[in-house]
């Protein structure tokens, strides 16, 4: 290939810059892949094909781009060596340049397409992610609220455990009271029994005294009869004393009988009370046991609920942390979009340069040349949207339903 004009060099440089951007985009893409690799590769290949056609010895790596840029003079003037050598008209295949013009245009359109798709994807993803975050926070708050309601408040588990403990304590006290009462009752029965024993003893003594008085009265009557008439008055007294003794004995026996009856009734009553107290004590003991049992069963549930609340809170925090990294990823994706926009501007500029070089605007490129560029570009197309840039697929293979069961 002959010596390149400065304008050609500029075009090559533009292409190199595009390639560098493509590499950057690909690098960013590797950080946050969102299915843009294929279109980017298409762009890269289109740009490379263009560069390859223009300069076979183009540096293959971006690392060598900077020296190349430095080597290019700023002013559009011929170099010394060029001025020394005879002027040579560059051999330029215009149709080939026009074909590149179309290719560059397609590359720009592709980058615009990818940029737009990236923006839409980022927006959609952001909405979804932040929506999920809000939902997650709401769910977490609801769980927390529900669990707090379950545990807190008047009817909550915490309160229930406290009530159970209070009631258990009350039952415990009641049991102790009943025990004291039973012991007091037993003591009273004992005192009563002793007292009744003493009364019975007194009764027996009175009865004995009455017997002795009776005997004494009988003897007195006998002695009075023996005396005869003078002892008649004494006999009357002896009879009265005998009657008194009998009455005393009857009263003593009646009293003893009454006391026995009273004691019997009281003892029976005491026994019944004691039985009732024992039954109550058993019931209280059972209730106390049940209350303690419930309290012990509920307490782990309360702890479990507290654990769930903490877990729910931790999960919400985890989701928030994850959101941080997702937000960062989305911004990397936004960088990709920005670079693609820059790529589009560069390709448009390169296209304009080519149009100046060929002196044929894009609209003036013949259908034949356009078709050649489209054919070459479309060989790389793998995504439906790419075909839309060249007026759609020619075959009917994609006209069918998107999902088909054979």
């Amino acid at each position: 290939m002959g010596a390149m004009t400065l304008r050609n060099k500029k075009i090559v440089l533009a292409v190199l810059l595009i390639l560098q951007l493509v590499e950057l985009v690909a690098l960013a893409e590797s950080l946050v892949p969102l299915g843009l690799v294929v279109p980017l590769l298409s762009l890269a290949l289109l740009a490379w094909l263009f560069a390859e056609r223009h300069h076979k010895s183009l540096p293959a790596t971006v690392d060598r781009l900077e020296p190349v840029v430095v080597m290019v003079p700023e002013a559009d003037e011929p170099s010394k060596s060029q001025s020394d050598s005879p002027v040579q008209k560059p051999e330029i295949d215009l149709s080939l340049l026009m074909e590149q013009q179309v290719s560059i245009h397609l590359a720009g359109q592709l980058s615009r397409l990818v940029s737009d798709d990236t923006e839409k994807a980022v927006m959609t993803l952001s909405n979804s992610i932040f929506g999920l975050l809000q939902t997650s926070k709401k769910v977490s708050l609801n769980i927390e609220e529900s669990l707090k309601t379950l545990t807190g408040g008047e009817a909550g588990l915490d309160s229930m455990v406290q009530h159970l403990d209070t009631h258990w304590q009350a039952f415990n006290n009641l049991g102790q009271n009943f025990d004291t009462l039973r012991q007091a009752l037993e003591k009273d029965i004992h005192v009563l029994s002793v007292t009744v024993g003493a009364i019975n003893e007194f009764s027996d003594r009175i009865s004995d005294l009455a017997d002795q008085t009776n005997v004494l009265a009988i003897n007195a009557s006998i002695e009075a009869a023996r005396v005869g008439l003078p002892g008649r008055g004494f006999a009357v007294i002896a009879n009265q004393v005998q009657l008194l003794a009998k009455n005393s004995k009857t009263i003593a026996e009646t009293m003893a009988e009454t006391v026995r009856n009273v004691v019997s009734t009281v003892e029976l009553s005491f026994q019944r009370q004691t039985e009732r107290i024992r039954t109550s004590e058993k019931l209280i003991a059972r209730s106390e046991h049940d209350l303690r049992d419930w309290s012990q069963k509920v307490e782990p549930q309360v702890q479990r609920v507290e654990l769930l609340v903490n877990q729910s809170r931790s999960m919400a925090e985890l989701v928030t942390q994850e959101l941080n990294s997702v937000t960062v990823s989305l911004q990397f994706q936004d960088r990709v979009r920005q670079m693609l926009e820059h790529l589009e501007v560069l390709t448009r500029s390169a296209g304009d340069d080519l149009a100046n070089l060929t002196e044929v605007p894009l609209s003036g490129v013949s259908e034949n040349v356009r078709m050649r560029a489209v054919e070459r570009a479309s060989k790389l197309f793998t995504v439906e949207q790419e075909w839309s840039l060249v007026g759609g697929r020619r075959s009917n293979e994609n006209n069918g339903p998107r999902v088909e069961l054979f």
Partner: protein
Amino acid sequence: MGKKILCIDDSSTIRMLVKKTLLPLDYEVLEAENGKQGLEMAINNPVDLLLVDVNMPVMNGFECVAAVKALPQYAKVPMVFLTTESSQEKKDQGRQLGVSGWIIKPFEPDGLVKILRMLLP
């Protein structure tokens, strides 16, 4: 509504991410896509804090902050740069303009919220 934040950034994605981050925390977020639009919004809608990108079309972040700072009502309003720029030279330039902070993109929502809460207690 809580404190009012003006986010000036040419990237709609960044503006949206800022908005999504701050709205649930009861901040009101206004948006502008370049420095000039941001300046006009700041004049017409008094805000409590400005989040400004550096590299923007029409009017860049430095020019925008300088213009807003010159307004008497914004003399004490905190301003923070939210940018991909990370060089000390640019940061110094921002400090000389009197901004309160510098956040390098990509930002983490937690970091952004932390700074805003410090500046707008």
